[in-house]
C-alpha cells in the first residue's frame, strides 16, 4: 500500500499528465478537475522512497467501540458494500484527507460519545425532540463527528440519509423546474441521485419496509405493499418522477415507527440562506423553502414534520462566505453574534420558524492531548512527515495550532517543511549545504 508521501508526490505528476489534451481525452472531465491527491497505481511507484511497510490496520469502527474508555483511540471505517463514504460522499476537505490516508481513520472524541448517547435516546423518541446542530469554530471537527454518527447509526441498522454538501441544493448547480401541483421548484437530478444513494446504502433495511398507501405517478404506479426499496429504485431510474418519489419515501418513513431514521446534513446553514442562487423567470431569487427538497429538509429540521423514531443531525460550515450562518440560526443556537446587528437588517420570519426547535451540540475547539497524540501517530505511521515522530515535533505542532484539529493536521503535520535531520554527515566538509547533501559535492 502506498504511503501518504507517495500520494502527494504523485498528485503533481498526475495533474501535469492530465493537461496533455492529446494524450488524455478525459483531461477536463469532472473526475480529473477535482484531481488533487489522486494516487498513482502502485505498480508505477518503483523508487526506494515509495517502498514502505504498510502500517498495521486500525481496528474497525463499530458501535460497541464508542465508549468513554476509547476516547483518544483511532479506528477505521471499513469498506463495506453499503459504504456511506463511497455512496453518499463526504465534504471536500474530508475527501482529500481520505485520499492521503491509507485507511479511512477517525479518532473517538468526547463529543462522539456524547452524540452517540443522544442518538441512542433519540432512537426511542420522535425526531422533533432530537433536532441537533453541531457547532463550533472553523476546523474543530464537526463534519467528522457527523460522519461518525452516520456510521454508528448505519451499523445499528437505522435508515440513514446523509447529505454531505447541502450547499449544492441551493447554489444553482443542479437543474430546477417549477411544479404547478405543489407550487415549488423540483430538483429532479438531485432527487434522482439522492434516491439512488439512499437505496445503495439502506437497501437491506428498505427491503423490509412497505408502503401503506399506493401512489400513482404519470407513467408509473406503486401499489400499497410495494417495498420502499422498489419505490426508491423506481424514482432513481426515472428523473421525471424522482422528486415526487422522494417526497413519498419521506412520507412513508415518517409514518412508520419500526425503524429509526437519521437525517444527517452537512453545510446545514446553507438551507437557511435568505436567497438561494436560483432565479425564477422574473429573475428574482428563489427562497430555499420554495425549493421542494430543501423545504422537506427544513420541515424535518424544524419539527414541522418528524420521524416517529430517529433524529435530524446537522453540522455547520463556517468557512463558506457565500453561505454564512444567518442571524436567525445564530439566535436559536445561541452562538456568539459577530457583527453588531443593524436595526435595518432584514430578517425572515419564515426562516425563523424553520429554525425553531434546533438544539446546539457544541464541538470542542481543541483536541485534547490524548486525541491529538493518536491523530499524530496515525499520520506518522502513514509517513506523512519525514521528520521522526517524537515529542518535540508533536508538541511544537500542537502548540502552533493551539489544538485546533484542522490546523494541527493540515498546517501542522502536512503543511510544514520540517524533515529528518541528515544522517551520515561528514563534518570535515566545509560548507553546510555541501555537508548536508543539499548541494551535490561533485556536479
Amino acid at each position, binding site marked *: 500500500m502506498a504511503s501518504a508521501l507517495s500520494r502527494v508526490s504523485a498528485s503533481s505528476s498526475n495533474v501535469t499528465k492530465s493537461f496533455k489534451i492529446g494524450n488524455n481525452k478525459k483531461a477536463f472531465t469532472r473526475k480529473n478537475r477535482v484531481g488533487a491527491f489522486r494516487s498513482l497505481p502502485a505498480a508505477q511507484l518503483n523508487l526506494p522512497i515509495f517502498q514502505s511497510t504498510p502500517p498495521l490496520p486500525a*481496528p474497525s469502527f463499530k458501535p*460497541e*467501540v464508542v465508549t*468513554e*474508555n*476509547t*476516547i*483518544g*483511540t483511532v479506528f477505521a471505517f471499513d469498506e463495506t458494500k453499503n459504504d456511506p463514504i463511497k455512496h453518499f460522499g463526504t465534504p471536500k476537505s474530508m475527501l482529500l484527507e481520505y485520499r492521503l490516508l491509507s485507511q479511512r481513520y477517525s479518532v473517538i472524541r468526547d463529543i462522539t460519545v456524547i452524540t452517540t448517547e443522544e442518538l441512542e435516546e433519540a432512537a426511542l423518541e420522535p425526531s422533533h425532540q432530537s433536532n441537533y446542530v453541531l457547532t463550533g469554530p472553523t*476546523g474543530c471537527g464537526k463534519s467528522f463527528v457527523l460522519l461518525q454518527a452516520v456510521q454508528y447509526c448505519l451499523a445499528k441498522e437505522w435508515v440513514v440519509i446523509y447529505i454531505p454538501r447541502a450547499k449544492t441544493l441551493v447554489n444553482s448547480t443542479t437543474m430546477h423546474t417549477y411544479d404547478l401541483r405543489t407550487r415549488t421548484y423540483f430538483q429532479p437530478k438531485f432527487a434522482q441521485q439522492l434516491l439512488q444513494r439512499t437505496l445503495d446504502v439502506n437497501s437491506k433495511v428498505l427491503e423490509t419496509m412497505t408502503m401503506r398507501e399506493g401512489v400513482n405517478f404519470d407513467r408509473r404506479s406503486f401499489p400499497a405493499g410495494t417495498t420502499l426499496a422498489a419505490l426508491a429504485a423506481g424514482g432513481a431510474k426515472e428523473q421525471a418522477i424522482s422528486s415526487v418519489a422522494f417526497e413519498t419515501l419521506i412520507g412513508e418513513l415518517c409514518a412508520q415507527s419500526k425503524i429509526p431514521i437519521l437525517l444527517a446534513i452537512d453545510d446545514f446553514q446553507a438551507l437557511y440562506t435568505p436567497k438561494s442562487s436560483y432565479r425564477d423567470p422574473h429573475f428574482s431569487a428563489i427562497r430555499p423553502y420554495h425549493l421542494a427538497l430543501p423545504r422537506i429538509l427544513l420541515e424535518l429540521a424544524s419539527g414541522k414534520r418528524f420521524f416517529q423514531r430517529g433524529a435530524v443531525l446537522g453540522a455547520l460550515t463556517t468557512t463558506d462566505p457565500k453561505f454564512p450562518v444567518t442571524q436567525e440560526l445564530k439566535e436559536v443556537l445561541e452562538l456568539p453574534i459577530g457583527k453588531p446587528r443593524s436595526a435595518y437588517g432584514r430578517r425572515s420570519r419564515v426562516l425563523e420558524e424553520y429554525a425553531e426547535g434546533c438544539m446546539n451540540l457544541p464541538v470542542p475547539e481543541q483536541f485534547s*492531548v*490524548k486525541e491529538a*497524540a*493518536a491523530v499524530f501517530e496515525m499520520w506518522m505511521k502513514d509517513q506523512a512527515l519525514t521528520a521522526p515522530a517524537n*515529542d*518535540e515535533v508533536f*508538541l*511544537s505542532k*500542537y*502548540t*502552533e*495550532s*493551539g*489544538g*485546533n484539529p484542522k*490546523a494541527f493536521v493540515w*498546517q*501542522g503535520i502536512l*503543511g*510544514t517543511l520540517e524533515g529528518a535531520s541528515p544522517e551520515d554527515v561528514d563534518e570535515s566538509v566545509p560548507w553546510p549545504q555541501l555537508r548536508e547533501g543539499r548541494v551535490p559535492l561533485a556536479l
Partner: protein
Amino acid sequence: MLRSQVFAVLRRPLFYRFVSTTRSFIPPSQLNHVGESRPRRSGVQELDAALMQEIADEVEAEEEDLDEIDEKPKPHPESPSFYTGRASYYDNLIELQNAISSTRGTLKRLHLLPLPEFARKSLIPMPTVWKTPREMTVDFETTITISRYRKVIALLNELNEYLRIATTAGYEEIADKISGIVTIFESGKKDAILTRGIRKPIELDRCGRSYTSGRRKTSTARVWMIPVKESPQEEDVDVEEVFGLPQSQSKAPAVNVSVSTILINNFPIVEYFPQPVDRERLVRPLKIAGVLGKYNIFTLVRGGGTTGQSGAIAHGIAKGIFAHEPETGTVLRKAKLLRRDPRMVERKKTGLAKARKAYTWVKR
C-alpha cells in the same frame, strides 16, 4: 586694597567706633566750629550749644553701648574659612586634601604607594559617577563653576584611586573610611548610569510571571509568561479492569504532557496568525530551549505586519525564557533569538525608484 577687605581679614575689628556708618565722624574738638565752615542750606539746623550737647550725649551713649558689646565677645563664625564667602566649599576642599594626604601616608607606610604598572592593571575596577555641578552647588551653597568643579573632581578621583588600592589590597578599615568620604560626593543615579547598555536581569513577579518586550521592524510585543501548573491527573477508571472482565479493545495509552497555550491580543494563535510560517516563528524559541509545554504565554502586540509581529513576539518569548531559565542563554544566543533583529526597511534614495531599484537605463 579696600578698607572692607582689610577688615574682613582681621579677626577682631580694631576700631569699633569707626565701623558704624550711620553718621559722619566729627572730632569733638571741632564740634564748636561746625556751623562756621559749612555753607548754610535750607532746612539744616544751626548748631548751637543745645544741639552740640545732644550730639555729645549721643556719642557717649554709643560709646557706652559699644563698651557693653566689648564686654560680651562677638560669636566666632562657625568655620575658619567663613570670610572666604564660600566656607562650605573651601572646608570640603581642605577636608579632601587632608584625607588624601593622610591616606597617602598610610599607603606609603604599607608599601602600596607608589604602585608598579602591573599592580595598577590588576586593581579592581570601581567606576564611579560623581555628582553634577548643579548638585554640588546645592550641597556647597555656592555656585560651582567649571574650574571649581574640576578641582573637586581631581581630588575625588585621587581618593577613589586610593580606595581601589585599599580594597584590592584588602585593608577594609582604610577602604571603609575612604568610602565614607567618597559616597558623600557620589551621584544618586550612579547605579542607573553604570548599568546603562547592560541587559538588566528580568525579575519574576510575585505570581512567578515574567514580563518582557520584543521588537522586530516596527512592531512591539509585550510578553507575559507563567509556568504551567500541572493539575493532578484524574485516573480513568477502567470498569473492565476493576471487575476483572476480559478487555474487549485496546485502551489508548495515557499521555501525561502539559501543553502551552499562547494568546495574542487575547486571540488564540490559530486565529491571529493564519500562516503556519508565523506560527512556527513564534514557537521556535520554545522549541530550541526545549521548554515546549512548560509555559503559558500571553502577549499584546502592536504595529507592523504579520512578519514583524511574529518576530517581535518570538523575541519577547526568548527573553522570557531566559528570565525563567538563565541556563538556556547559550543556546538561545547561538540561535540569535535573544538578539533584536536590526534589519529595518531601507529608505528610498533620490534618483532611484526604490531603495535599490533603479529606473530603466536609457541609452540616449
